[in-house]
């Protein structure tokens, strides 16, 4: 078993008075695809956004307990939020390319991080686009607007944009919820290929997707973790009745 790179201990999160995460305890291991499933409002996205501290943008957000990334308490003093967000690249539910060219979208994060020189950026962009299987489709129009790409291509572009930052983690928040089955398949394939290099955390409201790609899966309900286990176990013999009901489609 490989080492745990994310560790939550009694982690709680609040938006103002409302508690959105209750006593989360879990470990995510290096180079695994960790699936998070659960109905809407169960706190799965909030947990993801707690990991790169994107919740900080919302006024009234606060946390208790510990949340560690590679042994470092990310809510402790001395954490560089900017650096943290570069280490945990995030892909959102709706692809949000910036209103710029394809090239600039991929180069954006790297530029912000201080990568300079046209040659290095060129190489980085090409490399990132190849890893997401987008290179062949866009190599002859890198300077056209990213907003002209199809939904699936945009989502892979957002993934490429993360890869250009050379992160340690890739976090995806329902990345295929707006995509057709073929685009979804391409994204899932890409994720499996990326697994050797990255730790991947995949939040999905499509339980079958977790069954297809995740090594281990956590089931969130009302801000709590009901169950964490190997994906086969969760989907074949869950130990909690509620998990069983959810994956059978009885609610959610």
């Amino acid at each position: 078993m490989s080492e745990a790179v994310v560790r939550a201990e009694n982690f709680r999160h609040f938006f103002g008075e409302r508690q959105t995460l209750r006593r989360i305890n879990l470990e995510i291991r290096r180079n695994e695809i960790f699936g998070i499933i659960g109905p809407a409002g169960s706190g799965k996205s909030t947990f993801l956004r707690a990991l790169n501290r994107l919740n900080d943008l919302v006024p009234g957000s606060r946390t208790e307990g510990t949340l560690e990334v590679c042994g470092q308490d990310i809510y402790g003093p001395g954490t560089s939020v900017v650096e943290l967000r570069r280490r945990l690249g995030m892909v959102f539910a709706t692809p949000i390319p910036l209103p710029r060219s394809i090239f600039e979208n991929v180069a954006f994060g790297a530029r912000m991080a201080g990568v300079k020189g046209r040659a290095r950026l060129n190489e980085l962009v090409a490399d990132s686009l190849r890893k997401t299987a987008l290179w062949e489709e866009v190599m002859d129009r890198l300077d056209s607007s990213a907003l002209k790409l199809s939904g699936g291509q945009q989502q892979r572009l957002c993934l490429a944009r993360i890869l250009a930052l050379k992160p340690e983690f890739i976090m995806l928040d329902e990345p295929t919820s707006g995509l057709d089955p073929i685009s979804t398949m391409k994204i899932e394939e890409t994720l499996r290929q990326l697994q050797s290099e990255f730790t991947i955390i995949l939040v999905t409201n499509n339980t079958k997707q977790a069954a297809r790609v995740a090594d281990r899966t956590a089931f969130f309900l009302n801000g709590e973790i009901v169950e964490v286990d190997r994906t086969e176990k969760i989907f074949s013999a869950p130990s909690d009745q509620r998990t069983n009901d959810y994956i059978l489609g009885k609610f959610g």
Partner: protein
Amino acid sequence: MIAFSAVSILLIITIFIFGEGMPVMVKYGLRKFLFGLDWFPLERSYGLLPMIIGSLMVTGGALVIGVPFGLACAVVLTEFSSKRLRRFLKPIIELLAGIPSVVYGFIGVVILIPFIRDHLGGPGFSVLASSVILGIMILPTIISISIDSLEAVPRTYREGSIALGATRWQTTRMVMFPAAKSGIIASIILGMGRAIGETMAVIMVAGNAATIPRSLLDPVRTLTSNIALELGYAAGEHRQALFATGVILFVIIMILNTIANMTSRKRRP
């Protein structure tokens, strides 16, 4: 009916100004009006170049002062301060637009003119004084429209950029500004329209000499001041020449408004 009456009023004004102003322009030639250096109405010399340059200098100066201040203010209020503070401050800033221009001019005469005279030299009544006063007067326009267009940028753009490890300032500069560009440009052009059309405050602080200013500390006369100062006693051809001034001002403002409309219409980048 009411909407139509507004249009017909505009039409009547246009016909009237052009009707009064055109004959004298035709008689002496457009070139003489636009490029003539001497404005001696009593000797039938109607060169408007000093006033055109004066208007452009004062307006340009107002933008140099008002735009950086206004944009900085809009950015601080949208990106770096709480919603509550913004809700509180924005109406107050907009209130600035409601202060009569005479009051601005008065403040200029009492405070700014002596300051410039004592510390920078010259008579005090100058391009600089007019630019500063106008720069302050266009602030509310620039701030309020820029805030609106920055707020209209989808929240996802900001989140996406910040999730990529960009700092807030980088996000503002690289993502928010380009996305809000058309609104910001429109705010600048509207501010420019206000600056070029302003009369009272400028008359009070500009010094109004009908010559091309050699430095920022020299007096200046704008197109609008030219009309307001002389219309009271002008008669005959002189009066028509002032209408011709109005025609030129009218054309300049029309051009600016058309540009403003065009830029704010193409919203999508």
